[in-house]
């Protein structure tokens, strides 16, 4: 756990005018501040927060999976992955098959919440809007997998866990969904109320490799 205080040791020497700048110049616990860098002169990792227009969990009733998968595929404009533990994406949506009967639908547009909800029959599935309930952190770089492997004992070798693979696991006691977007890019979905703690852990874990924080982006 990092230092929980953002105060520099010489707080008393600060003036009102320098306070905000002084806070940005060093790691801020629990928040990603664009432009912040730490750990190395030439950081090998970048961190940034991503947003989504819509983020929904879809729970298919037993034996309704095919209907649900077909509907989600049509909505997203993708062919769904063949099994849980995989995701597929189009420019407008990303469909994660997270467990038997359970999907996460990430849409680029806020209207996707209503679109998906109305497109699915309640006899087939239940839809829960998680748009405000998840935050997404991207870690990118050659050593990103090493950082994640400090928390999760999952084989991130590209042969075992290629781009398009996902894992639900626990990072720093926080339930997380890890999406491998490419060989060096991982997106981590975490409950909003715990995302500050995830960022706190991640900045700490990334420190030995060095990281730079980039401007927030979108997941699609």
């Amino acid at each position, binding site marked *: 756990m990092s230092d929980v205080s953002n105060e520099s040791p010489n707080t008393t020497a600060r003036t009102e005018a320098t306070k905000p700048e002084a806070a940005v110049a060093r790691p801020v616990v629990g928040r990603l501040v664009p432009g912040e860098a730490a750990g190395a002169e030439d950081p090998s990792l970048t961190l940034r927060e991503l947003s989504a227009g819509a983020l929904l969990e879809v729970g298919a009733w037993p034996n309704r999976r095919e209907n649900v998968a077909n509907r989600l595929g049509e909505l997203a404009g993708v062919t769904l992955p063949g*099994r*849980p533990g995989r995701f597929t994406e189009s420019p407008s949506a990303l469909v994660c098959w997270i*467990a038997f009967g359970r999907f996460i639908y990430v849409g680029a547009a806020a209207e996707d919440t209503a679109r998906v909800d109305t497109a699915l029959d309640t006899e087939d599935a239940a839809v829960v809007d998680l748009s405000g309930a998840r935050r997404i952190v991207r870690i990118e770089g050659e050593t990103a997998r090493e950082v994640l492997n400090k928390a999760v004992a999952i084989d991130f070798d590209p042969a075992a866990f290629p781009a398009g693979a996902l894992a639900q*696991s626990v990072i720093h006691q926080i*339930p997380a969904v890890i999406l491998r977007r490419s060989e060096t890019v991982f997106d981590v979905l975490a409950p909003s109320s715990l995302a500050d703690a995830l960022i706190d852990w991640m900045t700490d874990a990334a420190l030995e490799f060095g990281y730079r924080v980039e401007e927030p982006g979108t997941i699609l």
Partner: protein
Amino acid sequence: MRIHCPCCGPRGVAEFSYGGDGTVRRPDLSVTDTDAHVAYVFERENPRGPHVELWHHIGGCRHWLRVTRDTLTHEITSVEMAGRFAGEAARISGAGA
């Protein structure tokens, strides 16, 4: 100890919580023999060797699993999906690879 989840693949035991003996069956509620209900709630074998038990993949897919584990060596010889999605799991190839 690692458990090979049929949905998620091999994961450390810390991601799972133990759900007890996987062989006990609750007597039908119409059964009035109280001994049968006492046995269901309290009486367990304490086997030395293979044991069928329930594990919940709470830190992963959140499915319930029926695991055959040797209580002496921790060797796991079988992991099956328990519950309503067991049939679906059996029909999807490549899951948990």
